[in-house]
């Protein structure tokens, strides 16, 4: 464990959920995805979110990622009450503080790796020079130097997920949300991706919240929470695999 990085970012409360519920539909058909979740995430953490399908972990991720809003309860991000923000303000929060990595990579087709990584920077209004510089740097970080002109179709699954990670970190986000980032990859590729995420967390102090099914992958995290029926059933520190 890298003690220096840990102490630098320790104890800064980043995310706080209080009694967060999420209900889909109304009346008899109402589906309670979250039934009052309390959760605190500190800067520099590497959190794995586990649980069976339909336990509410993905819903919780979407709310944390400001892609969705809670039905009730409060969500504070850096002290800001997210549930009171407008859709536009939440978008800006995503733009400046959050990065996303998805199970299905979600890269733009027929678009080079470099342009994919540049995408978030375009929305930040970066100049062409800055965009290129930062995107190349991010691709270098994920070990894809030399692959910048390849389109997703020309890359392997592992490489595509690396491009997606590069896209997520190119904006230097405070939190990186990874939704089953290894779900579409074989074991060897999965471990490579996890090494990469661990490195980002340890060396760059990026807070990572990762949803996963696989205990192998969760083992890389410093803390593991389990969802059952829309509630946090367990919340345990983890050694963090090295």
């Amino acid at each position, binding site marked *: 464990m890298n003690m220096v990085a840990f102490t630098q970012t320790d104890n800064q409360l980043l995310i706080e959920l209080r009694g967060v519920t999420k209900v889909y539909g109304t009346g008899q058909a109402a589906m309670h995805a979250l039934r009052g979740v309390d959760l605190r995430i500190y800067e520099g953490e590497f959190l794995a979110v586990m649980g069976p399908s339909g336990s509410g972990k993905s819903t919780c991720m979407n709310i944390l990622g400001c892609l969705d809003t809670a039905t009730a309860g409060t969500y504070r991000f850096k002290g800001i009450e997210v549930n009171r923000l407008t859709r*536009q303000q939440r978008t800006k929060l995503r733009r400046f503080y959050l990065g996303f990595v998805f199970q299905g990579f979600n890269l733009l*087709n027929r678009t080079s790796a470099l*342009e994919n990584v540049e*995408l*978030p920077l375009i*929305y930040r*209004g970066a100049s062409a020079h800055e965009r290129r510089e930062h995107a190349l740097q991010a691709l270098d970080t994920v070990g894809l130097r030399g692959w910048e002109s390849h389109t997703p179709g020309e890359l392997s699954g592992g490489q595509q997920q690396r491009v997606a990670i590069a896209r997520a970190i190119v*904006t230097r*986000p405070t939190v990186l949300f990874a939704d089953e980032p290894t779900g579409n990859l074989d074991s060897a590729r999965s471990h490579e991706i996890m090494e990469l995420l661990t490195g980002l967390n340890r060396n760059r102090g*990026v807070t990572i919240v990762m949803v996963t099914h696989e205990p192998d992958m969760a083992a890389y995290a410093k803390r593991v929470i389990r969802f059952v029926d829309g509630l946090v059933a367990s919340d345990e520190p983890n050694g963090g695999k090295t």
Partner: protein
Amino acid sequence: MPWKTKPVRSGNLVFWNTLLLAFREIRRNVMRSVLTILGIVIGVAAVIVMVTIGGGATVQVKQQIASMGSNLLMVTPGKRLGPGQSTGSIPFKESDAAAIAREVNSVKAVAPLSTQSAKAVFGNQNWSTQVAGSNNRYLQVTNRSIQSGRQFTDSEVRSGAAVCLIGETVRAKLFGGQGAIGEKIRLHGTSTSTSTGTGTSTSGSTGTGSSSGTGTGGATTTTSTNLSCEVIGLLTAKGQSTMGTDQDDFVVIPLAAYQRRLAGNQDVGIIQVSVEEGVSTEKVRQDIVRLLRDRRHLSPSDDDNFNVMDMKEIVKMLTGTTQMMTALLSAVAAVSLLVGGIGIMNIMLVSVTERTREIGIRLAVGALESEVLMQFLVEAVVLSSFGGVIGIVLALTTSVWLAGVLHVPFVFNAGIVVLAFLFSAAVGVIFGYFPALKAARLDPIEALRHE
């Protein structure tokens, strides 16, 4: 910590970035983009071609009428019944033309003119053309000149000598590469006389033709006539007129020869009067009307049994007609532009559905609703403007080619080019807005799940 967020920039840079996104998107799907703009390309091209060719035609009408002499009055017998003339009115005589020349002020030249179609023969070549009986004044009022040879002498006009001036087309058809001056051609015409007419009869005709009139009712007799005449001059070519008639396809002979040897009567079909520069044609027109009413013994209660037409009216009428045609055709073309716009909307709507996931990605990485809207809108505008530009290039090439084929001058109309471009861009905005709004309103989670 070096890993810090950069401050946002706005304004210009955002605009250029949106443009950049649009270009990347268009480049990503070249085929779809080409198909999308096809409608706009055709629409813009059609409008510009119509307006350009129509404008060229209008210019040509004006030029030709100007070359005929715009201060020209055409005096025709018969009541004014819209275009053309009525039948059964008293024809003019050469003396009427002489009277106008003598008694009306500010008249530059008066040319009596009678025409009929005839067959011109030289050797084994023959050609159906128009024969005009007139004098040298005819050349003056119609702005014609002699290219080679000479015009009529006074004595030839007086005596009705067997001499003629020919147009370029007649020369080419009869003589080909040979010289025509000094050669004799034969003109086969027809004389038409009414048995209850004004007293002139076919006896004046020295033609050898036989009577071909069937004489139904015994009212009209048609007789073939012919005349052999020497070519003394070749008229300078004028080319095709606006109405598509060949202005060089005719033969001019002295009026007296025409009356005696071809028509077999003393009638003058039309009197052309050219008015001096800077003089009101209306004043001259009124003078001619007064004189002719007097000569034709009309009482004040009688309507005119002749018509004096100002060439300027004809100019107005003809340009009005061409402009109307241009406007109508352009309107039809504009509809195709509209259809092109609907095509863009269609493809953009399909594209929004097809790109739902991509929109989800953009929203997730921090694109604002307004930015997605702008991107799709800019994409539509860039596409349609691009279509506009291609359409303009296509239209100008087509117009140049078509102007050549139709013998119409190519008149570059910058106004319509700019208008067509702006319209195509506007089509992008209008028809791109709805799909863009649809894209921007997508829920990021739903969009990301979309397959």
